[in-house]
């Protein structure tokens, strides 16, 4: 039952040392994501409450948001999730090289997403004159998407750290659970973005 195994003989879905068979780190990550769910839920609720009760003189959101750019960045983030899933799959099969490439593309896409966000923020501030302090729409929008962006940034740093670690020789198939937990986090950040995209950008269309 000891986990000395050649590639492929580890059961990545069952950990015999735990009562339920689910690895501790996975349960931890799921519980943490439940908490983060409530966290984003409250932020999104704040934004929606103010969107649906705008004070007089508020910029109409349609004039500010660019659905095209945001659709593009959403697509990029979705693709990064695909890459992340591939990375997890690779390490579970012991394929370190494939995992590294997948991680790299995940990071790359994540950075494109962040770049789009930065571009969008600058555009809103300088061209559309929507800042974090000059209106409620600005405050709630930038706080919400900024917090999400921070989550993406933390993810990118974590991914980069994992990528670097993979070159030390200490990241093997046995440590796949670490990559899998990271993947769960990354997918969560992606799903939250889908919700934000819908609730913020597409609100008037639904």
């Amino acid at each position, binding site marked *: *039952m*000891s*986990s*000395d195994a050649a590639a492929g003989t580890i059961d990545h879905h069952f950990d*015999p*040392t*735990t*009562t*339920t068979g*689910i690895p*501790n780190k996975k*349960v*931890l990550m799921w*519980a*943490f994501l*439940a*908490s*983060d769910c*409530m*966290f984003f*839920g*409250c*932020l999104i609720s*704040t934004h929606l*409450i*103010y969107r649906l*009760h*705008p*004070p*007089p003189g*508020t910029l109409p959101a349609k004039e500010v948001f660019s659905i095209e750019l945001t659709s593009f960045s959403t697509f990029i983030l979705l693709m990064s999730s695909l890459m992340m899933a591939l990375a997890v799959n690779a390490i579970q099969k012991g394929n370190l090289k494939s995992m590294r490439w997948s991680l790299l593309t995940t990071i790359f896409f994540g950075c494109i997403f962040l770049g789009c966000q930065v571009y969008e923020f600058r555009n809103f501030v300088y061209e559309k004159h929507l800042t*974090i*302090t000059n*209106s*409620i729409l*600005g*405050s*709630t929008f930038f*706080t919400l998407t900024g*917090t999400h962006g921070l989550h993406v940034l933390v993810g990118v740093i974590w991914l980069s*750290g994992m990528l670097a670690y993979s070159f030390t020789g200490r990241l093997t198939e*046995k*440590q796949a659970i670490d990559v899998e937990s990271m993947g769960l986090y990354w997918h969560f950040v992606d799903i939250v973005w889908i919700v934000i995209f819908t609730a913020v950008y597409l609100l008037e269309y639904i």
Partner: protein
Amino acid sequence: MEAIAKTDFLAKGAQPAKPFVLWRPTAKTGLVSWLTTVDHKRIGFLYGISGIFFLVVGGIEALLIRVQLAVPNNSFITSAQYSEMFTMHGTTMIFLVVMPIGAAFFNFVMPLQIGARDVAFPRLNAFSYWTFLVGAIIVNLGWFMKDGAPDAGWFGYAPLTTRNFAPTHAIDMWVMGLQLLGVASIAAALNFIVTIINLRAPGMTMMRLPVFTWMTLFTSFLIILSFPAITIALIELMMDRLFGTNFFEVSSGGLPILWQHLFWIFGHPEVYILILPAMGIISEILPTFSRKPLFGYPIVVFSGASIGLLGFGVWSHHMFTSGLGTVATAAFSLMTMAIAVPTGVKIFNWIGTLWGGHLSMRTPMMFALGFLWMFMLGGLSGIMHAAAPADTQQHGSYFVVAHFHYVLIGGSLFALLAGIHYWFPLMFGRKVSEFWGKLSFWLVFIGFNTTFFPMHFLGLEGMPRRTYTYDGNMGWNLGNMISTVGAFILAIGIGIYLGTMVYTYYKGERTVKDPWDGRTLEWSLPNPPPEYNYRVIPTIHARDGWWYEKRHKDEIAKEEAEHAKVEDAHGGIHMPFQSIYPFLAGVGILIGSIGTAVIDPASHAQYPGFWGPKIAVTMAGGAIMIVSVFLWALEGSDGYHIHLNDDGSVKGEEAHGGYASKH
């Protein structure tokens, strides 16, 4: 603690070669051993003494309030000081007393009750404690500063807490401190959830869990799901204060009612976070001292779950006077009444436990019975609040103060005091004197009722809360005087209680193992338990596992012998290495919080551009925290193995890498 001190065996040389920053601390005694501990029992102890220290602090704040209110138009303290007192009294008692003492029990007792050797993530556990301590420091820093302590009430309603009306750093410290306390609570709760789900001994099915462990689980779920609401509220307030955003800025269309909603979406589950552990403790003590199992175990567990779940649906009963509208008011009114049902069910089951038992009236039982009576009263005044139209006369008055002190002191605190008495022999191997214990009980009981029962009447006679003075022609004089006298009786009672505990810790009579003829697993251990908890992980055959073991000694002995052999063959008992990084991360957080909350933003004249002392200190703290977390990740979840002799003493040791081991 002596057994822990004796396992002083690990040599540094036993660790595999690695860079200096990744060396694992090995001290088992002294300051370093406490700063680097990952042992759930030590961490529980740290939470416990912190909670007790703040009990004294919060109690002094309360006494100052009561002296000021003893007579009308008193000038004992000023209005500004009074505002600090009631704010800090509330914040301290909730976040720095009841929650940490609860956490002390979760940490110490729960892993023992499920047959585990520690929690799932020992370093995260230590991090929770250090972050808690940093939060406690930040929230109390104002006492030592010109800006003063936070003074806008423990629920800090906007816009009173915006820069407009609270221009000093007092509220910044409140916000930052509370934020950190939330982080600490969430981290701890995540740990407990994984532990209870995944680290149970073989045979310990969920429906065999001790009720205290169930309540730990529910409380932890409540924490991770409710704290995000206050996290967001605090972030929004902080951003308004630091960056000039408009979340609660009235002139830009901000809605203060949003603060209320977010706060109470957290705030109501918070009070269940405060009471569920207490209910768990009572559910252990009553069966033990009645010598009968808990009556209706499944329904008590289910009630706990219902209370937790329904607790998310009643938050606006704190806002009945905010103009919610008829439909919302009706909905929350009915939900609040509904939540009385599972609460009542528990009381019925506790009484059912007593019925037909052999009741042993020792001190823990006295506190537990006191809990039953007082919590009943508090619950009934809660039902009175649930009727929203009647509540509009009670809200914001001393009636509410009476209600929540009945459930918080009569409920939570009584149960925690009971628990300390109850588990003291297990934790420290000494028995608390019955005389002094009972004396403290009676003084606390009488003092508590004398203080808070009159407040029901004061409230119904129109005395609002959070008022630093009142006129003498309102009919409130006698009630306030009685209340103040009661407060001093209560203080003496608590003082005797704490004094007794301290005395017993150093000089108390030693006790045998399992002095109360307990029912749950923790009593099967020596007192105090050794660092590794169980020689052999027990196999559970029934609810009240230890009660079963005592009555099936031969079967258990055989099982144990077999399992001991199996465990030894697998390499022995796995113990986690200690680590300095949770503590260092806490230090980074402390520095960063001081930067955020305490330091003034740079004036542009002195520091043109982005950089200034505030940014520098905040980033320095943040950097220390990030580096600590990074090294924490790098050092890995390594541990070492120990093998035991027949008498429980440790044979030898060998270090190994964490990932390869099974245990």
